[in-house]
């Protein structure tokens, strides 16, 4: 254990706190407490899975250089807008599909399309 209280431990603690509050909340606040717990679950998965690193590596395979993720995204978007890249660009569709899978697995691992691809958390 690197630290007694790691970031994931804090997330769990706040999730526990929100669950304690729930019986006292009604209506919009009860709903938002559930959304907040879900948001923390996204953060926990993002810390564990690091989808940005995966995205950066996948996009680098298309652009051919290892710039930071924001620049990779901006460059691909600029080329797609200019028409100098498109569906026929070698590796682009497969890379973007893998990026989308990695992001969705963090944001909503139960999403139907992940299940369909055999890539949900439980698959």
């Amino acid at each position, binding site marked *: 254990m690197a630290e007694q209280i790691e970031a994931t431990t804090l997330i769990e603690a706040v999730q526990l706190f929100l669950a304690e509050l729930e019986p006292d909340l009604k209506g919009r606040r009860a709903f938002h407490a559930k959304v907040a717990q879900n948001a923390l679950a996204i953060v926990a998965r993002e810390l564990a899975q690091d989808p940005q690193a995966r995205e950066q590596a996948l996009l680098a395979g298309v652009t051919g250089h290892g710039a930071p993720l924001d620049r990779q995204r901006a460059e691909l978007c600029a080329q797609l807008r200019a028409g100098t890249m498109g569906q026929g660009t070698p590796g682009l569709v497969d890379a973007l599909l893998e990026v989308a899978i990695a992001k969705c697995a963090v944001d909503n691992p139960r999403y139907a*399309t992940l299940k369909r691809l055999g890539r949900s958390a439980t698959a």
Partner: protein
Amino acid sequence: MAMPTPGDVAALIGADVTRVEQLSGGASSATFAVDAVKADGRLWPLILQCAATGSVPEGGLPRADQARLQQLAFAAGLPVAEVVRVLEPGDRLGEGFIMARLPGEALAPKWLKSPDFAPARTVLTRQCAEVLARLHAMPLNAAAGLALPSGSTAQSLERMFANYRRFGVDSPVFDLAFAWLRERVVDRPAGHIVHGDFRSGNLLVAPDGLVAVLDWELAHLGDGHEDLGWLCCNSWRFGVWDKPVGGFGERDALYAAYEAAGGGAVDRDRAHFWEVWGTLKWGIACLQLGDDHVSGRLRSVERAAIGRRVSEVELDLMHMLKFGSV
């Protein structure tokens, strides 16, 4: 905007009102359930929808015109809540209208999954096809005088792109989808009255079938195939992904029933084009909702979390581009 009292509403409709209860709403618009009683003693359940004047988004449909379009659809025999009264400036409740409150289930996840609604699910594809066929067969001059937004398909695509660019987000998936749409867009002039938000979440359903089509506020003039594509977007299937029509039906059955009901020939590629379009449009709506939080316009954990639904849309778009459909 002050909460309307039973007396306020009674004065508008000329009948006794026993209850006005807010169902939903924020700072700029609200929906109220109204219990009224007709002169002969019969209960008269109503809905009051109102919005602060000026809250209609730019290029959107003014609520009075939305109400008039609903009246037109009702008069044409479509399943729509009858509009009872359109608000006027002197009513001091902003823009809005009062319509019939019909019995039925509006929560799509419930009517899509509950065994009680199994009979409805067997007829809904045909019923939706018939509504759309009849709506799209209405002559454009039926809506003359209504401020229905209009534009060619290419103009609408460029408007959607400009909307995406407002948020300063770089999504290679969204840009690839825009490129895909631009390659295929056929610049048709607006030829139909389009509902604009025809999806399972906007259907009021009884155990035996469709009761009413709700939420006409995104109605516009355009290509009727837009409604066919939007109805099939994966986001409105609520997890029932193997039933592409709203989570309850098959595309072939939808198209056949649409043609049989006089909607005209369905071009499958064009319907698919609009399904890709609709998926992208929902993704940009997620960006917009996330931006409500980021910009400070409406800071809320719910808005921030919806912003993360962009990745569902990106996955659906890539599934369509890679495998041809989702």
